[in-house]
């Protein structure tokens, strides 16, 4: 069990990592900028490159950080809620619902805000359907929630496949990018950052209760945890965070499943440290992955979801093998 001091130290280090990843994202690109220029642009000085930093790279980097943090936190919460290490933010069908919404918007010829609002509505619809169908109480609720979510996700997957089959040739590229996760179309990172903050503030006060919930619901009740209310809170918060992340950047895979595990392997499973550490680690990972995605074979931009998996898989396997 980490002491409070060690927890703060770990979080301070991860904060440094987050700042460093954002600095790299702002400096690196088709036009490489020295950090001095980046700092000057951030502090409001007029430089030749301030538009690149402030209008192009900063919104994208912040959106990447927010989405990475949202997905990692939502994944960590889902793993506790379902008491299942294989759970991720998408396991309950939220990204599937968002995907159906977003692809419908693209088929209808909508762009930007239209796609975002359709995908958010799709995510909310999936969330309400799963929650409505899985409602009940008792020890089977977890299994039933998981099964309902998996089945709804499978249904959404079939609809998505159908839409891809029927879509006109010129729209398929955009659809595939959306499905793999893509930060290039983000206009404004502020909603995602705000929701991330709300999610952290909603989850952290219950972190010790979540430790008990992860060990078993009945024992948690016996130790004084109001389990049914806590489960609802966790479900709603994790689902909304996932919906916002997916709406912002498409269904970026892997971050939500693997970042909580990476953090757990490194520092243990105390949610008081795991939840904030996952936010910082997930945010940094996605910022770095996106920076690579837009530079590695420039001027072609790769979908960031591919990069998160390509970075995450070897790191994860290394940590797993080390134990």
């Amino acid at each position, binding site marked *: *069990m980490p*002491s*409070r001091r060690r927890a703060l130290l770990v979080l301070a280090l991860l904060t440094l990592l987050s700042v460093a990843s954002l600095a790299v994202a702002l400096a690196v690109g088709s036009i490489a900028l020295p950090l001095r220029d980046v700092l000057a642009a951030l502090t409001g000085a007029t430089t030749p490159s301030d538009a690149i930093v402030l209008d192009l790279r900063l919104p994208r980097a912040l959106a990447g950080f927010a989405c990475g943090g949202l997905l990692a936190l939502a994944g960590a919460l889902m*793993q506790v809620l379902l*008491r*299942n*290490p294989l759970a991720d933010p998408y396991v309950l069908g939220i990204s599937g619902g968002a995907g159906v919404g977003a692809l419908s918007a693209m088929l209808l010829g909508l762009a930007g805000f239209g796609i975002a609002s359709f995908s958010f509505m799709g995510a909310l619809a999936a969330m309400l359907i799963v929650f409505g169908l899985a409602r009940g109480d008792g020890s089977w609720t977890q299994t039933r929630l998981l099964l309902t979510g998996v089945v709804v996700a499978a249904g959404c997957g079939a609809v998505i496949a159908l839409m891809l089959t029927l879509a006109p040739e010129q729209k398929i590229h955009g659809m595939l990018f959306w499905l793999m996760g893509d930060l290039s179309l983000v206009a404004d990172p502020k909603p995602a950052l705000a929701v991330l903050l709300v999610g952290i503030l909603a989850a952290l*006060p219950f972190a*010790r*209760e979540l*430790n*008990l919930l*992860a*060990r*078993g619901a*009945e*024992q948690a*009740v*016996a*130790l*004084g*945890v*109001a389990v049914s209310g806590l489960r609802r809170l966790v479900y709603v918060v994790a689902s909304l965070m996932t919906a916002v992340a997916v709406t912002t950047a498409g269904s970026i895979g892997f971050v939500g499943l693997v970042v909580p595990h990476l953090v*757990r392997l490194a520092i*243990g*499973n*105390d949610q*008081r440290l795991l939840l904030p550490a996952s936010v910082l680690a997930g945010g940094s990972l996605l910022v770095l992955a996106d920076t690579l995605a837009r530079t590695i074979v420039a001027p072609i931009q790769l979908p960031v979801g591919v990069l998160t998996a390509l970075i995450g898989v070897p790191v994860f396997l290394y940590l797993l093998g080390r134990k």
Partner: protein
Amino acid sequence: MLAARNLSVGIGLHKVCRDLDLDLRPGSRLAILGRNGAGKSTLLATLAGLRAADAGTLLLDGKTYTEHGLREAARRRGWLGQDRSDPFASTVLEAVLTGRHPHLDRWSWESSADTQIARHALAAMSLAGMEAREIHTLSGGERQRVAIAALLAQAPRLYLLDEPLAHLDLNHQIATLELLSRRARAEGVAIVMVLHDPNLALRYCDQVVLLFGDSRHIAGPAADILDAATLSALYGHPLRRVENFFIPE
């Protein structure tokens, strides 16, 4: 400490007991006996306030569980369930410290005093030195003792234990029952446990509840109730009394 009046307990369509009356005073030790599926765990969970009774009243220190609230109830009574599945890794010390949860404020972390209490609980279950072990590397009996240690760390006044002796070897079965009896005598805690051995119930408990599985029950002093005829009917298997022991035929 715990008083039940006209308590009726059921699960689904199955009636576990009707009109059960119980009085547990400080120092009492009650065993719940019955066949598999008779509803022993259901009754225990009801007495722990984890599920609602169909009818009747249940008072812990003069108040219902609802009046106490979850947190206050958790400071007064502890419950040991049968489930030992832990999907995530954890050290033994972390597992035992979960018992301190009801004594900590929302933003407090476990103090060195809490850690000390957890270490004492581990030592009491002869697990001293195992603090840093990963629980998934423990044997079934060791995990059972870790769970009991967590209950000791919770330091309740009323202990409700569902098959506390499951997976324990003979040595630790007796050690655990001796420890609980000692606490009942010395500290005045009350103990309710689901047991499968009527001899241990007779030796370590002063009260018993027998559940026959068809909503009939018998409750009262262990020495008066436990005899070969009643136990033979309870288990559906003939038992003979040899000196002070019940032996299956």
